[in-house]
């Protein structure tokens, strides 16, 4: 029987199965950061247990670390304690790789893993972070877990799982100029809704997806969780294999050849059945801007803020009204009339080299508008930062009036000092526009890096296709 990619990945990891289908899945890669691991390490110690296989661990602090004045260390004492706790735990148990605060390879885990070749096709990848779905770009079974599961993986190298349903999202055709993986992700979420993927493992396919770079595929899989799916993945092809060649932890020599041979099998077989199929036409996807407090509240840049009065479902209508009130927006306002206060280019969704290149190509020779109080560019990792500087992108950002920062999660969730003040409006390349996400009372509009750059220049949302 033809198998889906999900079937293949699943079957390759089942250690044991209970009568009701609950399976024990073997975990190949465990990514560990400072926020969701301290209680797990503590639990392990209290129970007198040892980590099962520390060479599965790749770790770096990212959520709490500051993005400027690194010479002054981490000023917030509670943040510092969390980062120091990670240091101490990893020092005690060990890891395949640990990039502590200020290490040249430190960065957001979901950027660091792939760029070091620590994320390889066919792996199960878990992390106490919902955006672990990012690694699905490499045909991995990759998803977020809670802290109890972090402890479970540390202790047993396994996770208890039930098989998900499968969904194929096929995007066929060719994306228009200025339309990026982020727009595809937002358009998909706008189509299926934030709970549309709940209970499903999503495979992204179709010619438009195959045409994406690994960076673009990571952006797309990263946002699978915002569509409700714990995981999203893309089949292996030449793009995947070319990306992985000669990365620090990628296999070498004869083992590489063997690995590639296996990786080439990681795709859904012709005729494989999915529980649900959604198709989108690439040409129909426009640059997207969210207007509300959930990623599904999204429209094309040429559209207007929707009118709750036209929504027939009372719970939805109330949700829209609440969102508009929080966002300080009136129904039917054209998106391009909405002025912004801040711009954030960064996060595990859009902080890779290609994202920075896209934004820089819009910013080159231009300057942010006078009403924009702060424009931040935060590379996803030390390596991305160095690469961008080698290409002179930092100079483009700085000349345009952006601040060029050190790597980390930064204003994606504002656990460090980078945040919005109440009422401030931000064009952000991150992944969540929830109430308070970028600071209490802050108003987030999710966009692509190119659209964020266009908004920075205009001081309001603008159609990047008109400035490219």
């Amino acid at each position, binding site marked *: 029987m033809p198998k889906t990619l999900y079937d293949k990945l699943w079957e390759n990891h089942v*250690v*044991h199965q209970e*009568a*009701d289908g*609950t399976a*024990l899945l*073997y975990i*190949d890669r465990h990514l560990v950061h400072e*926020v969701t691991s301290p*209680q797990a390490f503590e639990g392990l110690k209290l*129970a007198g*247990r040892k980590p*099962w296989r520390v*060479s599965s661990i790749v770790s770096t602090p990212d*959520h709490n670390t500051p993005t400027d004045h690194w010479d002054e260390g981490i000023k917030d004492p*509670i943040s510092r*304690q969390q980062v120091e*706790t990670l240091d101490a735990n990893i020092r005690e148990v060990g890891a*395949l790789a640990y990039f502590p605060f200020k290490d040249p390879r430190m960065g957001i885990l979901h950027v660091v893993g792939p760029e070091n070749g620590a994320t*390889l096709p*066919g792996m199960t990848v878990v992390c*106490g*972070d*919902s955006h672990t779905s990012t690694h699905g770009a490499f045909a991995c079974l990759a998803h*977020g*877990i*809670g*802290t*109890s599961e972090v*402890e*479970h993986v540390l*202790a*047993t*190298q*396994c996770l208890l799982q*039930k098989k998900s349903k499968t969904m194929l999202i096929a995007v066929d055709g060719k994306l228009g100029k200025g339309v990026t993986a982020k727009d595809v992700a937002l358009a998909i979420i706008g189509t299926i809704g*934030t*709970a549309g993927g*709940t209970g499903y493992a999503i495979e992204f396919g179709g010619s438009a997806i195959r045409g994406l770079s690994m960076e673009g595929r990571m952006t797309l899989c990263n946002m699978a969780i915002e569509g*409700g*799916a*714990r995981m999203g993945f893309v089949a292996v092809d030449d793009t995947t294999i070319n990306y992985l060649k000669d990365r620090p*932890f990628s*296999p070498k020599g004869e*083992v590489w050849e*063997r*690995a590639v041979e*296996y990786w080439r099998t990681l795709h859904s077989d012709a005729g494989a059945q999915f529980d649900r199929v959604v198709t989108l036409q690439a040409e129909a996807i426009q640059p997207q801007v969210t207007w509300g407090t*959930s990623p599904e509240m999204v429209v094309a840049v040429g559209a207007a803020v929707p009118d709750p009065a036209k929504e027939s479902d009372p*719970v939805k209508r109330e*949700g829209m009204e609440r969102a508009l009130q929080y966002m300080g927006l009136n129904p039917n306002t054209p998106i391009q009339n909405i002025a912004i206060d801040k711009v954030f280019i960064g996060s595990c969704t859009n902080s890779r080299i290609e994202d920075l290149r896209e934004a820089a190509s819009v910013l080159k020779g231009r300057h942010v508008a006078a009403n924009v109080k702060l424009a931040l560019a935060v590379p996803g990792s030390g390596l991305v930062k160095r690469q961008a500087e080698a290409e002179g992108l930092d100079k483009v950002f700085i000349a345009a009036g952006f601040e060029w920062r050190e790597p980390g999660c930064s204003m994606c*969730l*504002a*656990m460090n000092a980078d945040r919005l003040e109440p009422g401030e409006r931000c064009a952000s390349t991150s992944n*969540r526009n*929830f*109430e*308070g*996400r970028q600071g*209490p009372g802050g108003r987030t509009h999710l966009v692509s890096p190119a659209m964020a750059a266009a908004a920075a220049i205009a001081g309001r949302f603008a159609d990047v296709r008109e400035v490219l």
Partner: protein
Amino acid sequence: MEKFTRLEGLVAPLDRNNVDTDAIIPKQFLKSIKRSGFGPNAFDEWRYMDVGQPGQDNSGRPKNPNFVLNQPRYQGAQVLLTRANFGCGSSREHAPWALLDFGFKAIIAESFADIFFNNCFKNGIVPIVLPAAEIEALFQQVEATPGYKLVVDLQAQAVIRPDGHGVPFQIDAFRKECLLNGWDDIGLTLRHAEKIREFEEKRRINQPWLFA
């Protein structure tokens, strides 16, 4: 983990779709390296008029009188009634920790986000999915009836209303067993340690690149 068998508890209604984990426990409280003490900051941004900080004494903070969980009639609630896609967003287990610390032992919703749903079981909270029509009926009854209580009978897999009407719910057999017995997942898994070791050895030979 504490056992869960049968609960009769006061019900609090949270009439929203898409309640995310950032709302359940805002990020500043994630800096704690403990598992406990999150209850006073559950729904912090909705519950209080000011912005909460970790380590602060919450007793004197101004409360938002319009937030449903602040209403006197819902004090001591153990069952949370809500709508679709509850617990979406971040994987933070601090969300179920905060709800449990607040006093909730069961959550009834139209649907849950996957990771949150999973995290509930690890902490002895029962997440119950009911059809939209049943949820709607419960909302109407709760709001109309001060002191409204529900019985959650895990063994029988039913939510029983005060009028005696029982609403059945589905739950995985394995998860049910774990909750009923208060079993620790890790202990259960380690019974298969030998199997895990064998699996790992085979893998090391067949896919050596995974063990660099």
